[in-house]
């Protein structure tokens, strides 16, 4: 009689793909630090204004008080000091960060969406490849800043009328940046798709009659995710800078709307006397860009099954 009651084999819990990605992502120290920092930044701009309740545009209406409040260094009342007309810099940094981060994220999403769509379509369907790539070339050849300026110039009033001055400008800036920065990701994605679609598993899928839509969603998109993510992180950085340029030229947000880019430009005038005015927004912008880049780096490693587990 054999003992049939052998101890049941202990099966490990099935691991999902995203769990693996997360485990691998945690191996990347830089990315983890960046993720934490970015969360802190997000909390600073999102939750900060709920705790620090000073209006970023508040100027003391009493001229005597206002004059006394100007150009203050850091103190308990104003942890980052005040600017040349007595506005609280901490409040302006929080409010400005909200706008800068929102613009950057949304513009990046728009750019990535357009870029990936164009790239995948061009790479997968040979018939429209030439057309789409010439379109991309055309956009690449356009001088972007003048194009942005013309767009802002033509549609600003119309957008402001429908959505109000700040929301209208937001939408316009986001669209303008998105529409002018998708080309690089489109080219990267197309190249990747061209290589992928000759791989055995795609051929196999096609040979059993899988429709193109499903092949793209199931087999191709997940595999182009890593270059897309890298392009996205670079896009965030570029979007923050572009927004500052537009604000500087007077075609971005109205002047009473602080953004990190605008704070930086305003601070340049006072750089000799009050260098911290440039340092605060400068740190915020560089830190965000750096964090996003590191996270992108970590994600790319984590998403690549060949690197995973090494």
């Amino acid at each position, binding site marked *: 009689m054999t003992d049939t009651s052998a101890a049941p084999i202990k099966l490990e819990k099935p691991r999902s793909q995203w769990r693996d990605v997360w485990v691998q992502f945690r191996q990347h120290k830089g990315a983890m630090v960046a993720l934490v920092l970015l969360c802190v930044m997000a909390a600073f701009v999102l939750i900060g204004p709920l705790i620090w309740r000073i209006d970023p545009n508040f100027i003391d209406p009493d001229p005597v008080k206002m004059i006394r409040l100007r150009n203050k260094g850091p103190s308990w009342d104003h942890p980052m000091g005040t600017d040349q007309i007595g506005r609280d810099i901490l409040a302006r940094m929080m409010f400005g960060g909200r706008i800068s981060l929102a613009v950057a994220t949304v513009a990046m999403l728009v750019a990535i969406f357009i870029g990936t769509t164009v790239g995948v379509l061009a790479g997968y369907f040979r018939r429209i490849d030439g057309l789409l790539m010439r379109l991309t070339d055309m956009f690449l050849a356009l001088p972007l800043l003048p194009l942005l300026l013309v767009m802002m110039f033509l549609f600003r*009033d119309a957008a402001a009328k429908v959505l109000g001055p700040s929301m209208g400008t937001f939408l316009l800036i986001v669209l303008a940046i998105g529409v002018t920065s998708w080309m690089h990701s489109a080219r990267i994605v197309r190249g990747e798709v061209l290589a992928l679609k000759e791989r055995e598993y795609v051929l196999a899928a096609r040979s059993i009659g899988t429709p193109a839509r499903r092949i793209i969603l199931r087999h191709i998109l997940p595999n182009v995710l890593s270059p897309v993510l890298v392009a996205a992180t670079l896009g965030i950085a570029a979007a923050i800078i572009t927004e500052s340029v537009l604000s500087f030229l007077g075609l971005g947000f109205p002047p009473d709307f602080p953004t990190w880019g605008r704070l930086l430009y305003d601070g340049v005038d006072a750089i000799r006397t009050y260098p911290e005015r440039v340092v605060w927004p400068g740190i915020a912008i560089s830190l965000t860009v750096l964090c996003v880049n590191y996270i992108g780096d970590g994600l790319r490693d984590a998403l690549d099954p060949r690197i995973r587990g090494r």
Partner: protein
Amino acid sequence: MKIKTLLMGAAAAFVLAPAAQAERGADGELKILYYQAVSTLNPYLSSGTKDVEAGSLVLDPLASFDQDGNMVPRLAVEIPTVENGGVAADLTSITWKLKEGITWSDGTPLTSEDVKFTWEYCTHPEGGCAQGAKYEGVKTVETPDPLTVKVVFEAPKPYPYQPFTGATAPILQKAQFGACVGAAASSCTEQNSKPIGTGPFVVTDFKVNDVITLEANPNYRDAAKPAFAKVTVKGGGDALAAASAVMETGEFDYAWNTQINPEQQAQMEAGGKGKFVNAFGTLVERIEINMTDPSSDLPEGERSTPKHPHPIFSDARVRQALSKAIDRNVLVEVGYGAAGRPTCNLVPAPAYQASDNTDCLTQDIEGAKKLLEEAGWVDSDGDGIRDKDGKKLSILYQTSVNAVRQDFQALVKGWWNEIGVEVELKSIDPGVYFGGDAASPDTFQKFYADVEMYANNFDGTDAEPYMSQYLCDKIPGPDNQWQGENVNRFCDPAYDALVKELSSTVGIEARGALVKKMNDMLTKDSHVIIPLVDRGRFSAQSNSIDGFIMNSWDSELWNVADWSRVK
């Protein structure tokens, strides 16, 4: 003002006394910094202030303007007037007498032929003279004898002093420039970079857009002047670097146009090597109020035209309330420091035509609120913004992109919010805003906003052309490609009548009185223009230079012959 003038005059006399006994060229080298580098020394070929001022080291006009805007004879014996017979009774000509014995730096004598030639040079149709406006309305220039010049005008000129006065209209030597008339003007490189003049210095070397070296004119009319043997005029850098070169490092003796913000002014002055000098001319930063409706609901071509009066600003009390709510002292403190002063006038100088209106200098928030209530604007729904007949008191406030202007916008918005006015801000690229492109909706002439801010001034001391900008027929609109100067769309037959009266009024005092009246009509009576800050010229001068008198009516180097080194 009077006392200040007297004191300055006294100080100048005090300073000049020892210098007069000094010897020519005894004080070594003078170093001047024009951070916008000089590109020509012929002021007739450049409208740039830097070129005109550098030219004034070498070239002399018949008369200059002193620090108060009064004319002082330079090459002329005296200032011609109707009283001394220099100006014809019918105002159609003016006769200048040249001083005897004046020679050019090459030793040849100055004659009335040179003066006449200068007029021919600048009015040549192919010459492209940058100072053509100075000779407008001149019919001919006659030379009865070598020391007499008679300028004949096409029509009676109540202000006949435009030609040959100030650093923008100096006398050129006929012998040197004779071949440079008309189309050849700009190709005469040698002449334009080394003009022969009657001024205190002679050019020895000229590197375009870089550096000019000059030495004392051996034939200068005053044997004891100038005190400096050599002058170097250097270009390059920016306002901040220029100020620092005089105030902190002491590399230069004088730096032109050091417009920097008040905090930096204080920091630089702590350097102890120099001081900032200012002089106030006619440049006034102001808020202009649109008397017509800029609403985008109106069809293009009717927006901001007199067809539709402004729904809010047609009531003068609202305009006055906006003016009352502003604290001009704070604006000066924040934006300009010593380079500005608060003003209530459109024409702030010279003294004989500046109104004594100072009502606006103290802020009156309560008074402003009361005015709005009287005008029927009350906050009926409790949202902090006044309304009337269902319309909110909400305005769009535009200006150019400029750090100081954006600070002003923020401050003014704060005060206007305080009295219950909602303000939306807009800033426009200066190239577009001042560009004058009739197709752009963002130019200051088109004025598709309720209020806008910028600065403007007038050339010289006579305000007549400036005041006539506010005539009814100067309103910009689609029929004149939006090119009028009356950006407020102000129109008052009584004002037009005054402009007409001014064009035939003689005598400084009478003309001044008229200008004052017109200034008050535009500012304190109607509040169509809200003047904010009188912006001066602002330069840096080393403590080791004596005899410097800042001037906003002529070249800042107008009295460089009197400068000397402190011993």
